[in-house]
């Protein structure tokens, strides 16, 4: 492999991966470098809402317009990883009455489809809503999309088009000559050595981490990471996405995701985009607001919390526009060979990638145009094919259905239903795990989680973490030296995201977790001893 490319993309979130797909489809040679795993930053820490645009029609019409258009496009190219749940905007007795009219007008102006419903219609659609507080509402075209899978499918397609994707490669420095960025020096975090790569142009798609990248070049890229925290509950609470009909604020959205429900979101400006902790105050806010439309919320078993940084650029917090920004550093800093993209939504990633790729193409004098909206992502299938696919998959139906839901027709093409079950909560078999390791660049337990949902169920990996480590151990030689660190890090991360809400069954589960790993496995002893020897720094 040559170390010279047309374009190097930094950042393996949905934006970077969308750009990798777009540019490689245009015939350019592309290298994508990601510090950790794909979708391990803001992308994988979102609620996975496929926006109708409704959320932004009043305050942020440009973003609403983008969402409305891209919502349709994504259903055409990635329908197999989208749940067409539909969405509701509910005005409760706690919400401003005058927002209803603004919302309806905003929808009309931005092209966001909406339909006003009577109280009875709303309660018929969502009988779990608190009857005493619902006053008014609209139906919109919201949906749920798996952010990990969307990123992964973009990666697979980019690779099919010749793009190189290197995960666990961290940018150490840039190679600059006379105001022109020529390449990057990166560290392979798994093997430990440094590598150099060159390109005509580098795309900084590191989102909330864009400022950190800019500092290596002496640039001031005004990223304003805004932390959003969310809670995952162990079952479906609503059939649809349920939004509060009011200006966006904390705890006002429930998104159904597979068999779980995600309640979001908070918004707190943070200096460090790597701050993934959820504070007690944030939890109180989420519970307090969420229970206004679903009072039984305190009795639903939570699974975990998570938090991620919104990749905002320019202004901060709730005030910042959710549309995206492209910075051409040739114009702003007289630095050739670097462009930065930030902001935007998961829903609009393809549009962002198209605009950025147009700019890169024109700089490189490439003539081909964007086709990402015309060609579906890998695994796309016609829904009428589902019964034929079920017949072809040689597993039991509830397993086969889940694999198809996760991978579309790839589940048949790659026989992902094969092998013995590894994760019993989410029904993941060894075929799916091995494919993820061999062809989809899974290198750690967390990577397998993002690709297959293994460890995401109610037991949070208690039964399968060791099995996943074992599969990685056999499939990848370098993992044999890493497995202990990976296991320890994974247990720590998983733990810190559940203990802050641990009560009832979740607390019992956590106690069992401790019993198995710390007591019986004696890993608390091992970890402390390794710390004493300085051999196991926290990641």
């Amino acid at each position: 492999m040559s170390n010279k490319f047309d374009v190097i993309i930094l950042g393996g979130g949905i934006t970077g991966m969308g750009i990798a797909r777009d540019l490689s489809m245009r015939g350019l040679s592309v290298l994508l470098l990601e510090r950790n795993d794909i979708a391990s930053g803001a992308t994988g820490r979102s609620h996975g809402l496929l926006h109708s645009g409704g959320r932004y029609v009043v305050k942020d019409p440009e973003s609403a317009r983008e969402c409305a258009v891209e919502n349709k496009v994504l259903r055409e190219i990635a329908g197999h990883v989208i749940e067409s749940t539909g969405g509701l905007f509910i005005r409760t007795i706690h919400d401003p009455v005058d927002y209803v009219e603004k919302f309806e007008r905003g929808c009309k102006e931005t092209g966001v489809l909406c339909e006003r419903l009577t109280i009875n219609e709303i309660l018929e659609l969502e009988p779990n809503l608190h009857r005493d507080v619902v006053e008014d509402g609209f139906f919109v075209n919201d949906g749920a999309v798996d952010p990990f899978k969307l990123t992964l499918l973009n990666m697979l397609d980019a690779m099919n088009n010749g793009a190189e994707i290197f995960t666990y490669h961290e940018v150490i420095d840039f190679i600059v000559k006379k105001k022109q960025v020529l390449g990057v020096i990166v560290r392979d975090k798994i093997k430990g050595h440094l590598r150099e790569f060159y390109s005509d142009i580098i795309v900084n798609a590191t989102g909330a981490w864009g400022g950190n990248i800019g500092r290596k070049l002496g640039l001031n890229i005004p990223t304003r990471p805004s932390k959003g925290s969310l809670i995952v509950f162990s079952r479906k609470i609503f059939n649809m996405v349920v939004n509060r009909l009011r200006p966006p604020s904390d705890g006002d959205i429930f998104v159904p995701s597979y068999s779980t429900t995600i309640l979001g979101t908070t918004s707190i400006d943070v200096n460090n985009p790597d701050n993934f902790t959820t504070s007690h105050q944030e939890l109180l806010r989420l519970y307090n607001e969420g229970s206004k439309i679903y009072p039984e919320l305190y009795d639903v078993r939570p699974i975990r919390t998570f938090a991620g940084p919104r990749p905002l650029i320019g202004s901060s917090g709730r005030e910042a526009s959710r549309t995206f920004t492209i910075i051409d550093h040739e114009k702003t800093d007289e630095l050739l060979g670097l462009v930065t993209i930030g902001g935007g939504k998961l829903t609009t990633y393809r549009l962002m990638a198209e605009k950025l790729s147009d700019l890169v193409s024109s700089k490189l004098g490439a003539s081909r145009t964007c086709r990402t909206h015309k060609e579906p992502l890998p695994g796309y299938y016609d829904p009428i094919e589902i019964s034929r696919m079920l017949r072809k998959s040689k597993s039991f139906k509830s397993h086969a259905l889940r694999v198809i839901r996760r991978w579309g027709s790839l589940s048949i093409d790659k026989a992902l239903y094969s092998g013995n079950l590894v994760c019993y909560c989410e029904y993941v078999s060894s075929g799916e795990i091995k494919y993820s390791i061999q062809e989809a660049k899974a290198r750690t337990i967390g990577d397998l989680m993002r690709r297959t949902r293994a460890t995401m169920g109610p037991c949070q990996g208690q039964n399968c973490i060791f099995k996943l480590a074992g599969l990685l151990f056999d499939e990848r030689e370098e993992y044999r030296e890493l497995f202990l660190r990976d296991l320890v890090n994974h247990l720590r991360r998983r733990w810190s995201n559940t203990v802050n809400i641990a009560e009832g069954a979740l607390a019992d589960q956590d106690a069992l977790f401790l019993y198995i790993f710390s007591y019986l496995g004696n890993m608390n002893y091992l970890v402390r001893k390794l710390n004493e020897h300085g051999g196991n720094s926290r990641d």
Partner: protein
Amino acid sequence: MIRRRSDVLIIGSGAAGLLTAYYLAKRNISVSVITKGYGATAMSSGCFDVLGMLDNTFLESFIDGYEQLPDNHPYKIVSMNKLNTLINLFDSAINEAKELLTLYTGDIKRNIKVITFFGSIKPTALIQKSMRGSILHHDGNYIFLGFRNVYDYNPNLQAKMLLSFAKIVGYTGIRARGEKINLEINIPSIQFLPVLLRKREIFERFIKALERVMNEHSPDSILIPPIFDNIQDLEEIQKKAPLFETPSPTPYRAGLRLNRLLWRMVEKSNVPIFHVRELKVDIKDRAVSRIIAISDEKEIEFISNSFVLATGDLVGGGLRVVNEDKNLNKALIDTVFGLKITNLGKSAFSDDIFDKHYLNKFGFKVNEDLQPINESNTSLLDNLYVAGSIIGGYDMNEEKSGLGIPLVTSFKLYKVLEKELG
């Protein structure tokens, strides 16, 4: 409504509840046991750990750590702060339950280091006989045995883990490796193995593979998790090969085996065990007057002089963390009487899984007679007693003091109740 009278009603069928019932029944005290399930003993590794570690250091015996234990530790309380009393209690607890020794080997006063399912090393006192090859020796040559295309565990990873552990505990002469054998049959999970091995041709393939492993590596022990329902199946194999079980968590069988043995011991002593669903508790004049339970769609009224709560901790289901208010402040309660044990504040556990956990030390505060008491040392209910891990004051994860607590508290409680009931 059916009425049942007994001198003692025991709630919970884990090690603590069943042992208490067993000791009492042997002295002809009438006992009934009610239970909602099988308890956490069935989920344990099946080893009796008494006191294996303090301050992250292995102990040679519980005797070595005794003085360092806090005064509210169950071991200190049952022995009234005298080491000799504790030693006697443990000796008597074992001697009076001799049937346990059909399954176990070891010395309650001497800790051994065993190799677990994870490839880790953990201290314990009594192990099941089927596990005797999992004892760690300085120059041991161990093979972890796995099966091709079975992912319940990975013998190569376990071997690597054992070598990491052995280095830390200073056992430098150890050899370990993993071997995956192929039985040319689909094994969905190794728990199917005992059933599969009943087929002659599969059993022969298994023995052949074992022989190959033995000839190639001449190991001291070939280790697998406890998967045999019938221990005779394993003993049959052990005539030909040094195949041993490792202490393993649920869903493997060692804990279940112990639970079943205790269950049989109790039933043989003519103690009735009732599976019940809901429980209703009647309290009069600061004492439990009766418990009404629904069993097999029938209501049964249990009337007793003394009531024993042996329902376990969070894992067993005897304790529960609840949100006390909308500020998500937490409290620890018991699940039968709803007695509040303590406020936990915002979080029950530490942020780091490998730290010490605040919650672990909590459970009922008890007096010398194993009666739950309040802050001013008066009993909560006059005729209520507790045994096992529902008692607070100790941290099982730090001390590796799992089944030692139920063993000694149930024996002590039997002594208390025997005196009480004359």
